[in-house]
């Protein structure tokens, strides 16, 4: 039990630690979540900002591209209008030379319908040399097979066979006067134009600006390095770009492997997509400072909250301790008041015993019980008792002072420490309650005497009859003996008379023997006795009375091996009382039901030992009548003092209550129940083995010798 308590206390402590740990974790997670949230918000804003920047730049780049290409396109269309299929190569050369174009166009050329170079805007061609065949070039082929249609084609970056430079070819179909395909005009655009521009407008080293054709080949790309001609047609991002006009670019580049975020826009006029993107690492770096600030704030906040939590815990603990202290004090106060109140009851003494000393709580000085108890608590026996004490101890103590005997009921109650945490049993603090029972005992004795007197009144008539009988025999025998003596009868006659007289006096003294209980206070000692002896004794006293009332007494059973420890006179007194009650009940029944039914009224006395495993052996003595039983309404009350169902003047109502008290003093019980024919009173007494009872029995000794 105590171990369990200790475990609980340990758990309590553990729980407190858990609570503290838990709240710290909670605080940490709250601040952490706050920090992460804040950081995420900031990062998202940053990303969004960069994406928008990329979008704006993408529009600008596309716009600049369109503005760069549109005049070229327009010029090429004009050239087509001026073009004549009948031009000689020289004429064509001159037409090209005379055609004004932006400086970004490094070369303008004409290719005939078979893909053979006709003329360029550069130096005079060598007309004797064979014409350079360009029909294998894509930007020529798309016009020859008509797949480019009537719009301008923008080629992949190519190393010009004519210009010997890396250029993008803007090409358009040329038409004869009848409108049929007559050749291709090629404007070779210097990629460097774009690359220089894009390199210049980039804001960070890894920022990307790229022009990608619908075929997935990069026309121009500016990043840490400038490049062109890369093929991204395999990437998922590119495939997505083809399905949309514009959108977010977020991917790892297939060309330089850098993860970027940005925007792409598709040109509405030319098969070109513009991508502007920023290195994610750069974006991330932009939030670096902010992140640092947030972390510092988070740690600071956490430390602060933790400090607050620790302080709060300390405060609560202190408060708890203070409250416990207050409760403890008030509990002690109440306890003291309570004990004082009890101590004021007359005949009650309360003593508070601690390791430090003894304090009498009840105040009345000169109280004998208090003095006795103060002596009592200073004895070694009492100290020895204390060390063993775990639960309240009830005992009956007898003291003698100035020739007066005192009977005191003592309760020694250990005080539980108020604070559960403290080690139980360490502080041996007890309260001793003492209740003076002396006067109560005296009263009980008086009551007992009174009940005996009451019984005496009832048995007197029976006893008179019982004594009258031998007296009558004695008188007659004496007279007859005398007459015989006078008439000179034989000596034997007188002897027989005297013997008879002697017999009768023995009979009388036996009756008187049992009457002694009425005039005597009880034996102090319990002695083992055979229960049937008490029954015989009781019948000696009341048997005659019962016979006079025509009531048969049957005695059944025996208990050879089980005797009882008792004051035999008291047990007899109880049996007499029960027999008288039974007889009274039978007489009442007769008065009610009319007349005596001869030989039918019986009181049954039975003795039965009871030995059952695991229980103390008992001896039961039952007194059973056939008077119909105790009414249910009063069966609970029959053992109360002064309760009687008898007519006024007939009974005192003390008999059963005193009997009850006597049997209880013997460590037994007296109970009543009704059976089919009447009441059954059962005396149950602890049994002692008969063979243990060799010693003299003080009470029966004298009369047994005479019988």
């Amino acid at each position, binding site marked *: 039990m105590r171990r369990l308590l200790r475990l609980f206390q340990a758990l309590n402590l553990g729980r407190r630690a858990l609570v503290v740990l838990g709240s710290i974790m909670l605080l940490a997670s709250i601040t952490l979540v706050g920090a992460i949230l804040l950081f995420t918000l900031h990062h998202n804003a940053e990303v969004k900002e960069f994406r928008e920047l990329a979008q704006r730049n993408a529009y600008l780049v596309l716009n600049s591209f369109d503005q760069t290409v549109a005049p070229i396109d327009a010029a090429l269309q004009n050239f087509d209008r001026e073009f004549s299929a009948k031009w000689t190569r020289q004429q064509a050369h001159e037409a090209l030379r005379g055609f004004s174009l932006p400086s970004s166009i490094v070369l303008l050329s004409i290719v005939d319908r078979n893909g053979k170079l006709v003329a360029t805007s550069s130096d005079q061609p060598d007309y004797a040399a064979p014409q350079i065949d360009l029909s294998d070039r894509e930007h020529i082929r798309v016009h020859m097979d008509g797949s480019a249609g009537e719009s301008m084609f923008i080629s992949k970056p190519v190393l010009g066979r004519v210009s010997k430079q890396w250029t993008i070819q803007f090409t358009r179909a040329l038409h004869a006067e009848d409108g049929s395909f007559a050749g291709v005009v090629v404007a070779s655009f210097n990629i460097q134009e774009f690359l220089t521009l894009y390199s210049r407008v980039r804001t960070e080293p890894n920022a990307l600006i790229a022009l990608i054709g619908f075929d997935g080949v990069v026309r121009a790309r500016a990043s840490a390095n400038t490049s062109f001609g890369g093929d991204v047609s395999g990437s998922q991002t590119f495939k997505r770009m083809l399905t949309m006009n514009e959108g977010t670019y977020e991917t790892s580049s297939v060309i330089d492997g850098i993860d970027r975020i940005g925007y792409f826009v598709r040109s509405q006029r030319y098969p070109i997509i513009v991508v502007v993107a920023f290195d994610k690492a750069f974006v991330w770096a932009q939030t670096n400072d902010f992140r640092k600030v947030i972390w510092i704030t988070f740690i600071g906040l956490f430390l602060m909250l933790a400090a607050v939590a620790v302080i709060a815990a300390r405060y609560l603990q202190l408060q708890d301790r203070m409250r416990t202290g207050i409760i403890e004090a008030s509990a002690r106060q109440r306890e003291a008041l309570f004990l004082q109140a009890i101590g004021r009851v007359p005949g009650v003494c309360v003593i508070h015993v601690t390791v430090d000393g003894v304090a009498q709580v009840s105040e009345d000085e000169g109280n004998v019980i208090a003095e006795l108890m103060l002596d009592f608590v200073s004895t070694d026996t009492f100290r020895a008792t204390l060390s063993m004490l775990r639960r309240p101890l009830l005992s009956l103590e007898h003291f003698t002072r100035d020739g007066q005997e005192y009977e005191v009921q003592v309760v020694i109650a250990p005080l539980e420490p108020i604070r559960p945490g403290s080690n139980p049993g360490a502080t041996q603090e007890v309260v001793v309650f003492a209740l003076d029972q002396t006067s109560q005992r005296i009263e009980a004795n008086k009551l007992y005497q009174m009940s005996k007197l009451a019984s005496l009144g009832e048995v007197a*008539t029976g006893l*008179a*009859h019982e004594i*009258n*009988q031998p*007296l*009558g*025999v004695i*008188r*007659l*025998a004496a*007279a*007859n003996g005398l*007459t*015989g003596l006078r*008439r000179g009868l034989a000596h034997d006659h007188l002897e027989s008379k005297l013997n*008879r007289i002697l*017999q*009768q006096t023995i009979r009388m003294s036996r009756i008187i023997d049992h009457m002694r209980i009425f005039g005597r206070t009880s034996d102090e000692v319990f002695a083992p006795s055979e229960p049937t002896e008490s029954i015989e004794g009781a019948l000696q006293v009341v048997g005659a009375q019962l*016979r*006079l009332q*025509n009531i048969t007494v049957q005695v059944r059973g025996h208990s050879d091996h089980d005797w009882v420890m008792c004051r035999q006179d008291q047990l007899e007194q109880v049996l007499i009382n029960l027999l008288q009650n039974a007889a009274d009940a039978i007489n009442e029944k007769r008065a009610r039901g009319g007349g005596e039914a*001869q*030989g039918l009224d019986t009181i049954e006395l039975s003795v039965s030992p009871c030995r059952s495993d695991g229980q103390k052996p008992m001896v039961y003595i039952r007194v059973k009548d056939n008077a119909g039983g105790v009414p249910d309404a009063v069966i609970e009350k029959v053992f109360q003092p002064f309760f009687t169902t008898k007519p006024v003047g007939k009974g005192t109502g003390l008999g059963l209550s005193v009997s009850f008290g006597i049997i209880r003093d013997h460590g037994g019980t007296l109970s009543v129940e009704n059976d089919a024919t009447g009441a059954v009173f059962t005396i149950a007494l602890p049994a002692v083995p008969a063979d243990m009872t060799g010693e003299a029995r003080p009470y029966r000794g004298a009369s047994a010798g005479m019988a």
Partner: protein
Amino acid sequence: MSHLLIVDDEPEYLDELIEALGFDDLKAHSARNAAQALALVHTHPQVNVVLTDIRMPDLDGIRMLNEIQLRYPERAFKFIVMTGHASSEDITRAVNAGVEACLPKPLVMEELQRVLNRVLAPSGGDGKS
């Protein structure tokens, strides 16, 4: 000649009483209970004086007397009762039953002698007291 029957449940007492009366040359039948007494009255028609105790285990003495009167109405019985109880209730019942005398126990022999003399005398046979 009147015949006396003495009924008492105490054998020793009965014994001494018979002996005491014998010293006075008075012979008597004896019975130890009502049943014996009733049987004796039946077998000895000459019995006409009955001296009985009131309290007896089987039948109350006065009831026994009533029973005898009831059974043998033709025989003129004279009854004397003795009681150790001497309760007024018993005495009233005895007088009502028409007994000659009611004697307290222990018996005073002289008193018994006097009553018996009166009852047993042939002149007193009509039962007048």
